[in-house]
């Protein structure tokens, strides 16, 4: 327990001390939130209603997808994991603790957004706080899991950026953050349902914000939690201590299994 607390405390401090992580955890999401609130709120009045869930989902995606994978790849390539292995630090701690500390940073950012958005932008607050927290947790676990998985399977920082952007950019465009899901063509909507952002926005709207969901909001919650847990399980399974001559337990293509809950969700919960 002492080891876990020490590891957690160190990783949490790193999230503030490391300039890149500070940017991804706090500066970028909060800066973007203020920019969007002032600019988009003026241009598109309907954005006001989406401000809190959209900016919370954006913060989660930024801190996880853009913040978690690269440090994992760098640590592996720089021999840090080898040193961890020699000293008995389990792979599950290496993968889960950075995700947990990121979630704690995200909680702080989410509190800032939900507390200030009604004052700054007249944004409506959640009507169901327990469900808001539940969806927040599900989204953080889903995005955290995918991010850790990207860090585990990426052979280099360059590939990490590519894989992360493959989730991040479509989420920004069709994930319901900027453009409501109902405005998407049907085919695009189905593709959008493969993204955690779409599921998160649907669940926030249907369960926490007092608005109408576009498809089953509880289905979205189930999808987010299942995909997140599956992603962590796959990351632990596919983890390698270093990239040089260390056998991986399975092929990296197995990581694509993380899409299964989303595909199943399209058939089961649409």
């Amino acid at each position, binding site marked *: 327990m*002492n*080891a876990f*607390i*020490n*590891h957690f405390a*160190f990783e949490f*401090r*790193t999230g503030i*001390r*490391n300039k890149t992580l500070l940017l991804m955890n706090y500066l970028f999401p909060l800066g973007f939130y203020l920019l969007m609130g002032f600019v988009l709120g003026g241009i598109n009045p309907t954005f006001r209603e989406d401000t809190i869930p959209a900016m919370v989902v954006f913060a989660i995606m930024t801190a996880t997808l853009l913040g978690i994978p690269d440090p994992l790849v760098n*640590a592996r390539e*720089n*021999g*840090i994991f*080898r*040193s*961890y*292995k*020699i*000293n*008995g*630090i389990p792979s599950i701690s290496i993968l889960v603790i950075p995700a947990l500390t990121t979630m704690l940073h995200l909680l702080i950012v989410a509190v800032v957004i939900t507390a200030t958005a009604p004052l700054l932008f007249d944004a409506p607050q959640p009507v169901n706080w327990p469900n808001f927290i539940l969806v927040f947790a599900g989204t953080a676990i889903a995005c955290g899991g995918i991010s850790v998985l990207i860090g585990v399977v990426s052979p280099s920082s360059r590939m990490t950026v590519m894989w992360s952007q493959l989730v991040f950019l479509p989420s920004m465009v069709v994930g319901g953050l900027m453009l409501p899901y109902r405005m998407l063509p049907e085919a695009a909507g189905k593709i959008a349902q493969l993204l955690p952002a779409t599921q998160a926005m649907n669940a926030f709207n249907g369960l926490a914000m007092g608005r109408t969901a576009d498809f089953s909001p509880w289905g979205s919650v189930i999808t987010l939690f299942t995909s997140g847990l599956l992603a962590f399980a796959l990351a632990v399974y596919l983890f390698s*201590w*270093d990239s040089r*001559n*260390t*056998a991986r337990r399975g092929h990296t293509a197995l990581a694509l299994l993380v899409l299964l809950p989303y595909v199943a969700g399209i058939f089961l919960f649409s």
Partner: protein
Amino acid sequence: MKNSIIEVKDFRKTYGDFVAVDKISFDVKQGEIFGLLGPNGAGKTSTLESLEGLRAPNGGSLRVAGIDPAREPRKLRNVIGVQLQSSGLPESITPDEAMNFFCAYHDVKPRFDLLERLGLSEKRKDQFYKLSTGQQQRLGLALAVAHDPQVLFLDEPTAGLDVATRVELHEMMRELQSNGTTIVLATHDMAEAEEMSDRVAILLNSKIVTIGTPMEITATGAGFTKVSVRTQSSSLSNTDTSFPFVSQQTVKDEYSIYFSTDIGPTVSAIIAHIETHGDSLIDLRVERPSLEDRFLEITTNGAAQ
């Protein structure tokens, strides 16, 4: 006779078709400082990393304190300490945090005294990337010994260290040895290996080419002992003068230098020559072949074969 704490039998390590280590066998006694030497690519790192549990062997058997490193990594971690060549720490961690962090996973109290002893007291709150290479090395060593391991693996421990820290590190190694710690030292520094190691093994082309004490190894070479002599009237400056058992001779900085295969008769003949010519001796130095000379001889011959 001390017990073997490390046993390597017919150990083989391959990467695809490349054979990094080819059926080597050796053992290391408890409390011994054992030097592992060899040029780059000889198989040192593969051997060390397999003993540390970082790689699985492709053949043979390895035992460290009775533990199979590949099969029992959890048991192994409390028995061994490893100072990696690259220190293997996150760039934002401070020495204090690293000590807390690693000791917590070993379930021992943090040893901040080691940071003081290794000259890191002023740097305890500095992030790892702000430390100099030498300071990073010292931190790596402090972390490697903090849980009082039975076997300590040191990979180039003095690379990048200043003289004072290097001396401190050597003292620390001797102290650890006197407390019963076995040390496996991989180094390119032959003087360090010769000074510190009880025994050394030289690896070349995936095999052990020689193993023994530094004295034994240096004694088994071509065996040229260097005799350097300086006299008042330079009576030895005539290079036509020949002495018994001298195979080569040269003159450098007022010294006549002879390479002898049998030092006794050579020195006697030189002194007799000086006296006969009414000259007087100013300086006479006898240097046996160093481990470095022997290493170069082995690796040059080995590479040529």
